[in-house]
């Protein structure tokens, strides 16, 4: 059963709301089943949609006949691409050398993966819509499936005519002089790692309600999305409804993990259907659709080479990475997001001056790839850390020691990695040492020996890492991604009762944003936490965030914007208070909603009184000509990098290949901690998700490109029985480049845990001489390691 022990060391802030362990304000609603999701939205005259989805993975569409479907009682319409304005999805994001392949909203001439939407049926209920969907007759001419990036089947037909070899990217870059270093290196270690396709699998699948009002010419959309403003742009482009008349509204989102960043073809199709029919249309995705047709992730092969000297000093690194893009490369440079980030962060927390990589990404007849928590980092982290362990074993150097010898040191900050990432601050060595202590490493080694003697195999894996967080413009530039607007604005408004509403374009998917942003604002304003609410995002009123909630950024970027806006508001309130109290505003203090003048016998007024007077008394206007209590600020932080170290202990049953994770410990550093409860939720949830990637989750296809994992009976998520006890310690290295030193932590645990678990398996089975070469490590794969060892004698 999962449990958590958390401790915090080195608090940087004096007691205040920032840095305080307060319960999450959204939990009362979410835990009591009072969350409101898209499925809860209902409107007069609403109708329900089901998609007709492709069953072949690669085929030409010869004809679509909707006659039978349309005549079924209860059916309002059955629409194909021919019935809707031509619309495709492709975004403005761009990396030099990347071929973009727009995805049609509904397949027109060809289908390119199982589950691609071919038609929409709209009916009085989802039941009837599904009945009718079965009656839509699509005639296909099947084509050979490309099931492996870069591998052509016999009779190969390109997935996209313009890309005869299916390749969307094929480039490399070199830093320092890796050729020379490898030529002269005393030791070279090599590692291959294959990561299966897996996916975010949010508890709430995707969903959209679209309501076009022909009279007003407006389009209202409720959607389970991470990026409402981005979606609004796409909806406007597809529908022709001007952006100010498109309104995207959100309530709760039941998890996103990246899957809901991009605008999806289905969301646009539903909006277009509503426009065509002039009625509200609702689509609530089911699990089978989500597993088949929602964006997938991972799907990479990494080949890595490490050169060291006799003391184990890392001389150079080389990587060759092949990414499986899926059938389209349509959003957020998604098809490349996995392998490209893998390449750019490969050197990790180590001083490596000579590095070269080559990345190839190819289309396959599978669902397109999109970001998923820990995108790209996981492949780099797991391949590199496994390789370091293998080098340590071979060189006879302890694993902690080898890492310590090569790690970026405290006095190296700011440290510029060879690929151009500038690490602002961090606790790399300290996190490693903390995990060494938490895992009682010396005792563990004895225990491991004793266990082995009695036929039990336990292992320990360690995984120290650094990750870009926040992702402002500067961080985007550092990673080599030049066209991604990653700034936020926030509006902080105080009403006449002295209470505050925060409006942001970065909606919550349950992470705790409502709590942390309220903490920031309440601390800056000096009012109780309960006096601040973060409103649900409505694109027509929220300040624009073109990035939305993703990439461990909301606390850093939205948090900074909220902090700055709250500072502005505080100044304005104190200015008015100064006028009212006839004193110099700069000496006033504010705490718990009360403004005090320390000079005048501690004369005081409440914040609410100040605001009320400002509305009533015209005299105030000589001091503050525009006494409105709303402040909006824009924020684009400097590049900042969080770090952590995860340690995992597993027991392997060598006979069955079963792996039990006994314990996971972690030391995390996300700079200034706003709220330990929220950080631990993110870190531990991430580690649990990482456990899934390490041991359970993979999307399987057969050789015809047909997906085999279409229910949760086949796609295995970690459950409470697989997730172990977690222990977490907090380290705090505030960033010099962000508001109050905040760094992100949203993806952290997901990045670190797979490598730690994989390395623990390798450690448990070190005596076999076998290595971990894939993720997930299913029981049969673990058993194969044992058998390979037996075969070697």
């Amino acid at each position, binding site marked *: 059963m999962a449990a958590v022990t958390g401790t915090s060391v080195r608090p940087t802030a004096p007691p205040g709301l920032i840095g305080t362990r307060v319960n999450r304000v959204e939990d009362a609603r979410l835990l009591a089943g009072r969350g409101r999701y898209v499925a809860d939205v209902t409107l007069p005259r609403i109708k329900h949609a089901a998609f007709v989805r492709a069953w072949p993975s690669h085929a030409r569409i010869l004809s679509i006949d909707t006659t039978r479907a349309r005549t079924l009682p209860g059916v309002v319409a059955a629409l194909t691409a021919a019935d809707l304005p031509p619309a495709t999805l492709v975004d403005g994001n761009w990396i030099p050398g990347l071929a973009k392949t727009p995805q049609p909203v509904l397949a027109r001439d060809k289908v390119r993966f199982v589950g691609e939407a071919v038609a929409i049926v709209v009916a009085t209920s989802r039941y009837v819509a*599904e009945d009718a969907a079965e009656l839509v007759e699509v005639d296909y001419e099947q084509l050979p499936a490309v099931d492996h990036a870069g591998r052509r089947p016999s009779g190969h037909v390109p997935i996209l005519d313009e890309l005869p070899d299916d390749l969307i990217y094929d480039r490399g870059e070199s830093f320092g002089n890796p050729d020379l270093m490898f030529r002269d290196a005393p030791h070279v270690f090599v590692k291959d790692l294959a990561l299966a396709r897996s996916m975010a699998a949010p508890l709430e699948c995707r969903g959209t309600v679209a309501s076009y009002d022909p009279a007003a010419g407006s389009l209202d959309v409720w959607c389970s999305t991470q990026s409402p403003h981005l979606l609004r742009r796409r909806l406007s482009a597809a529908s022709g409804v001007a952006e100010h008349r498109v309104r995207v509204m959100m309530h709760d989102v039941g998890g996103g993990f990246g899957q809901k960043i991009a605008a999806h073809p289905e969301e646009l199709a539903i909006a277009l259907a509503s426009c065509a029919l002039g009625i509200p249309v609702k689509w609530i995705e089911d699990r089978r659709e989500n597993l088949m047709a929602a964006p997938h992730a991972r799907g990479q092969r990494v080949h890595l080479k490490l050169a060291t000297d006799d003391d184990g000093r890392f001389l150079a690194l080389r990587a060759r990475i092949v990414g499986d893009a899926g059938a389209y490369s349509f959003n957020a440079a998604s098809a490349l997001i996995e392998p490209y980030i893998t390449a750019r962060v490969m050197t990790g927390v180590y001083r490596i001056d000579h590095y070269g990589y080559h990345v190839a990404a190819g289309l396959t007849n599978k669902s397109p790839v999109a970001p998923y928590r820990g995108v790209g980092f996981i492949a780099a982290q797991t391949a590199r850390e496994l390789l370091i362990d293998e080098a340590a074993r071979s060189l006879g150097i302890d694993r902690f020691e080898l890492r310590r010898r090569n790690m970026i040191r405290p006095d190296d900050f700011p440290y510029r990695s060879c690929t151009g990432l500038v690490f602002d601050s961090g606790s790399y060595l300290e996190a490693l040492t903390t995990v060494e202590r938490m895992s009682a490493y010396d005792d563990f080694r004895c225990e491991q020996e004793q266990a082995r003697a009695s036929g039990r195999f336990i292992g320990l894996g360690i995984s120290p890492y650094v990750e870009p967080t926040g992702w402002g413009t500067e961080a985007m530039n550092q990673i080599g991604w030049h066209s991604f607007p990653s700034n936020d604005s926030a509006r902080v408004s105080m009403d006449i009762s002295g209470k505050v509403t925060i409006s942001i374009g970065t909606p919550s998917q349950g992470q705790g944003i409502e709590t942390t942003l309220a903490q920031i604002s309440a601390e800056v304003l000096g009012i109780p936490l309960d006096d601040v609410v973060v409103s649900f995002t409505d694109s027509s009123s929220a300040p624009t965030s073109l990035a939305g909630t993703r990439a461990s950024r909301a606390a850093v970027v939205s948090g900074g914007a909220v902090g700055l806006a709250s500072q502005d508001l505080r100044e304005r309130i104190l200015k008015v208070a100064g006028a009212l109290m006839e004193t110099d505003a700069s000496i006033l203090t504010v705490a718990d909603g009360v403004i005090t003048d320390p000079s005048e016998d501690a004369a005081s007024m409440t914040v609410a009184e100040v605001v009320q007077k400002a509305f009533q008394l015209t005299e105030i206007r000589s001091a503050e000509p525009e006494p409105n209590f709303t402040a909006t600020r824009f924020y684009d932080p400097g590049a900042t990098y969080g770090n952590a170290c995860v340690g995992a202990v597993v027991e392997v049953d060598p006979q*069955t290949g079963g792996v039990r994770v006994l314990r996971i410990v972690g030391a995390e550093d996300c700079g200034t901690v706003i709220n330990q409860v929220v950080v631990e939720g993110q870190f531990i949830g991430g580690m649990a998700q990482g456990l899934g990637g390490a041991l359970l989750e993979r999307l399987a296809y057969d050789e015809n490109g047909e997906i085999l994992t279409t229910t949760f009976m*086949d796609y295995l998520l970690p459950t409470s029985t697989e997730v172990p006890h977690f222990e977490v310690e907090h380290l705090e290295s505030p960033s010099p480049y962000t508001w109050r030193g905040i760094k992100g932590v949203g993806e952290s645990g997901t990045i670190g845990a797979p490598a730690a678990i994989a390395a623990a398996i390798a450690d448990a089975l070190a005596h076999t001489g076998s290595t971990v070469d894939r993720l997930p490590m299913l029981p049969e794969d673990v058993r194969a390691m044992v058998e390979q060892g037996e075969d070697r004698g």
Partner: protein
Amino acid sequence: MKPAPFGYLAPRSVDETLELMASHGDDAKVIAGGQSLGPLLNLRLATPAMVIDLNRILELAGISAHDGDGLTIGAMTRQHDAETSPAVAAACPLLAEALPYVAHRTIRNRGTIGGSLAHSDPAAELPAVVTAVRAEMVIRSRSGERTIPAEEFFLGYFTAALEPDELLVAVRVPAVPARTTSAWQEFATRSGDYAIVGVAAVIGLDGAGVVDRASIVCSGIADVPRQLSTAQSALVGQEPTSAVIAAAVAAQHTDPPADLVGSSSYRRHLVGVLAQRALEAATERQEGNDDRPTG
């Protein structure tokens, strides 16, 4: 994931049910706990015109012990009720041991003994268990009642020896003979999942400590619960030491199918590992058995 349209009937007695089954024939499906049929309906893998709900038929639920002569478990007995029944623990410890491996607690609160057996999933625990303990299936239709041995009940993947108008009303478990012990072993990727391979083992010893009965039945390696008959024969007449068990298990040929969760050779390997563990566990339980021969 919405079912195709179907009609719904909720009879209150077995007789009424049998009438309905006879008149609807192939077009109808009975629903018990719905833990397998529910998903099949939602995925439209089953599209019956009529669903006949057994949940209001009280006479189908319940466990009766026959005074040292075994048990009768009504088809609508919830899996969790059987799992926690002292009568089951006493008269069929193998069933009590295997039940916690069936799915999760909440599913066992709804899922029924009869539903799991009638569903005839070769990966399920209960078909292997009832085969190993040589239970009998009690089947009724409008034309009467018949009883067949478990061994003859499971015909293939999701196919039981039931005509469309026949209802499984109960399973009859014989008393555990003297000096007979059992064990269940399985391996699943996650707890609560269908096992990749499961093994039910029953060992009976004669007065001299020599095996006079061995049942070894596997889930997950064929289209029906598969008895390891070569290994069974190899054990009979021997003292069940680890080495003897290992030799018997090694002599067994199996040819499991491959699928997403395991290749044929991995499954074959697991049969060996789990059969060894189950037989050793069953043998160890002889130690604490009062009926153990002395000397």
